[in-house]
């Protein structure tokens, strides 16, 4: 697999490997430093497993101060750094390279403090997304962004990628739910951004860092915003004869001033795959399925669902299943939440992540189907319909290199289509290496150069997560565009 290029490792760095490891060993205890080939293998890729690169070494600092010392040393030695949370990036955001040191967050997984009056919580960056919500669930609170990988992914990784989830329609994405963060800069300096209050003034560095994919520094602590759980939540499952009818229903729900907490969409193939795996009782005769979830008291949910069901009926809904119990709710969500895993049982797949204006959903679904058929492949669609964030799963056989290339080509065509209808390349997974070479399709040279100059303001030596997001000659472009 060679479609996505990596830079050639710097032989001068490789030659200094022993010296670099000795320097790191002087800063952290042995259990925080991974050097043997066997153990480094665990860090050679993330969830974009078709690409692998063995890192020079892996450091797992325990504190901000330790991270700072490590970063200062690597900066002085001119060594590249790849930050890593749990390694669940679907875009290759955490894939290392041979001449880089991975700095992992796994030993910084403490919850530092919770304040229910202020509705905030301070955590180390290696805490998992789900652990945050679990820690406050008994008190009736939660942390809103809930990416599918929430059991494993870290808040540091979520900040790196500005992760979303199924409930963004109402609660926003990571950037809307982080109040503050501590970050170690490329040279080891420690900065505090924001706090446990709402508006911090000054340039919004926190907003810039969230979604910057590890290129501006390494976040070691964060203050997250907690929200109170609704009195209750209840999904309803709709089967529609066609994707068009389901798409029109979504537009009509929102057009009627109703903002459900989630609107999830599955096409026919996704329904079949998920039902075979989860036995959730999905209607196999439907052409498309929607899961719409509302929140509130029992009476409030009844009233809202009644309005939503009326709208669905206007669009020819063929199956309506309102959850009557916690078990039914879990069953309805189980199929959706296991969609990626279930698809993985049927075939290898690449998961795309473009966002389109919701008015374009049906058009894009139709075109996606055409594109994938053109390459002789199959596609299942599972996505967040309320916000237009699509997730076509392009299925292929990983052992057939020609088929993998076709799948990647189809994926790229789909993402270009998303941009062409007014959307973007990635709604929540990030650019990583996967979409790096498509950035020029969404941005002009001037747009990209401006972003790269900002990146260079944080990391002039281009040492932090290089070869991600921007063109491989980004450093030169940033320098020459500044004149």
């Amino acid at each position, binding site marked *: 697999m060679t479609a996505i290029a990596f830079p050639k490792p710097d032989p001068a760095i490789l030659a200094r490997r022993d010296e670099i490891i000795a320097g790191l060993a002087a800063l952290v205890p042995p259990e925080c430093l991974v050097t043997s080939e066997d153990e480094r293998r665990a860090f050679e890729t993330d969830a974009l497993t078709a690409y692998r690169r063995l890192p020079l070494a892996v450091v797992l600092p325990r504190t901000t101060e330790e991270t700072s010392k490590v970063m200062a040393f690597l900066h002085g030695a001119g060594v590249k750094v790849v930050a890593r949370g749990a390694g669940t990036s679907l875009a290759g955001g955490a894939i290392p390279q041979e001449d880089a040191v991975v700095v992992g967050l796994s030993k910084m997984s403490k919850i530092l403090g919770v*304040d229910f*009056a202020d*509705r905030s919580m301070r955590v180390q960056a290696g805490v998992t997304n789900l652990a945050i919500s679990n820690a406050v669930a008994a008190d*009736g*609170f939660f942390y809103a962004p809930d990416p599918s990988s929430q059991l494993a992914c870290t808040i540091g990784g979520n900040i790196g*990628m500005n992760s*979303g989830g199924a409930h*963004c329609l109402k609660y926003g*994405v990571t*950037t*809307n739910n982080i109040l503050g963060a501590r970050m170690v*800069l490329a040279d080891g*300096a420690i900065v*505090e*951004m924001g*706090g446990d*209050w*709402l*508006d911090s*003034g*000054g*340039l*919004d*560095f*926190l*907003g*810039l860092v969230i*979604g910057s994919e590890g290129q501006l520094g390494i976040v070691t602590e964060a203050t997250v915003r907690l929200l*109170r759980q*609704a*009195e209750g939540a209840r999904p309803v499952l709709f089967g529609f004869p066609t994707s068009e009818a389901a798409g029109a229903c979504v*537009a009509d729900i929102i057009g009627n*001033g*109703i903002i459900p907490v989630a609107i999830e969409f599955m096409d026919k193939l996704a329904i079949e795959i998920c039902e075979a795996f989860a036995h959730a009782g999905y209607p196999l005769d439907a052409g498309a399925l929607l899961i719409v979830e509302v929140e509130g*008291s029992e009476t*409030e949910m009844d*009233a809202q669902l009644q309005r939503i069901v009326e709208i669905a009926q206007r669009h020819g809904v063929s199956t309506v299943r309102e959850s009557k119990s916690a078990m039914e709710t879990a069953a309805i969500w189980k199929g959706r939440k296991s969609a990626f895993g279930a698809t993985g049982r049927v075939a290898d797949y690449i998961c795309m992540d473009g*966002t389109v*204006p919701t008015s374009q959903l049906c058009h894009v679904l139709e075109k996606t189907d055409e594109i994938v058929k053109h390459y002789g492949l199959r596609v299942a669609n599972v996505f967040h319909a309320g*916000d*237009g964030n699509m997730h076509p799963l392009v299925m292929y056989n990983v052992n057939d290199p020609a088929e993998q290339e076709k799948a990647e080509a189809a994926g790229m065509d789909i993402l270009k289509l998303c941009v062409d209808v*007014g*959307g*973007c390349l*990635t*709604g*929540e997974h*990030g*650019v990583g290496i996967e979409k790096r070479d498509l950035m020029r399709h*969404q*941005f*002009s040279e*001037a*747009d*990209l150069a*401006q*972003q790269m100059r*900002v990146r*260079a303001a944080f990391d002039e030596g281009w040492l932090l997560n290089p070869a991600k997001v921007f063109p491989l000659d980004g450093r030169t472009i940033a320098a020459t565009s*500044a004149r």
Partner: protein
Amino acid sequence: MILSPTSEAELIEAVRAARAPLAIEGGGSKGGLGRPLQAQDTLSLKNLGGVIFYEPAEMVFRARAGTPVAQLEQMLAEHGQMLPFEPMNHQSIYGAAGAPTIGAVAACNISGPRRISHGAARDSLIGVRFVNGFGEAINSGGRVMKNVTGLDLVKLQAGAFGTLGPLSEVTFKVLPRPSTQATLALHGLDDARAIGALCRAVGSPFEISGAAHLPAGILGDAPRTLLRIENVPESVVYRLGELQKIVGGGDTLDAAQSEALWRQVRDVAAFASPDARALWRISTAPSRAVDLVRRVQQGGAVAHFYDWSGGLVWLAVETGDDARAADIRAAVAACGGHATLVRAPVDLRARVDVFQPPSAPLMALTRAVKASFDPNAILNPGRMYAGV
């Protein structure tokens, strides 16, 4: 000279032709916000207006920077929608005649009471187009609400006060306007009890969209503690009832009374012009707000009220030599938060830090980022920090 481009091409031309600093302004409603700057020419975006698209079913609009906020609010209301973040109108505190523009709302990240539940302007701003100091039109973000493609320059522009380049277009996501609202008012509470009640209410499942405490003398003789609910009528009634159980009673202001009162809270009517006292806006953690105010009071009298469940403190003080900046900065340093000197005479704003000075490494980043947009320091230099 005042330059008033009517198109983005003219805006680019104006920036490219500039050899000396340009002061950027919109409608002129909040010229008193920020440090005064020495600029030869003013770049007004007032004539760069107009809605580019509005898609109610997608809950999104794009408008040119100079479009008046009032025009957009009316457009949204006609389709039963609203700006989620309820931007404050600064006309009354400055006694200004100019009308606020949407570009300035974005550039200054202006929000209002609903910020506590629906986020700030920066949270609803999903796309910008601006002109950098090289005279290039730059796009960031777009028209979809989930977008993580590239660095988020949209966030950087929100609250940069034009120092990274004048915005030419802004794209906001919007929300349905709730069909009605009501406010629960508690009477006679001191600051600590009031903020305790606000925090309990905001930590309930009832989606409070406004949480303010007005001490005695602020918009009335006796203290009032206010909790707003916006929803369908049945939910407003149900939730008010549940809230009363949590906070122990209180009486109800109907939709019209509620709307009028929250407008006064939003626009800081308690300290409206001709009140000329210096005015501070302090964001802090609700649990430390009372202590923060008490610390400032130890150095002399203040008038104050709280929004955002106590997380936003408005403080009016005598202007004096430094508008009590030393006391206030010390209190904020002790309690945590961020203070902005929103209103003071121009000479004082040149002398005293208007924005809280960032830490040394963040200040260095601020300079480096500014230079990456505007290396010749043409665009609003000094509006936020001297020399930046």
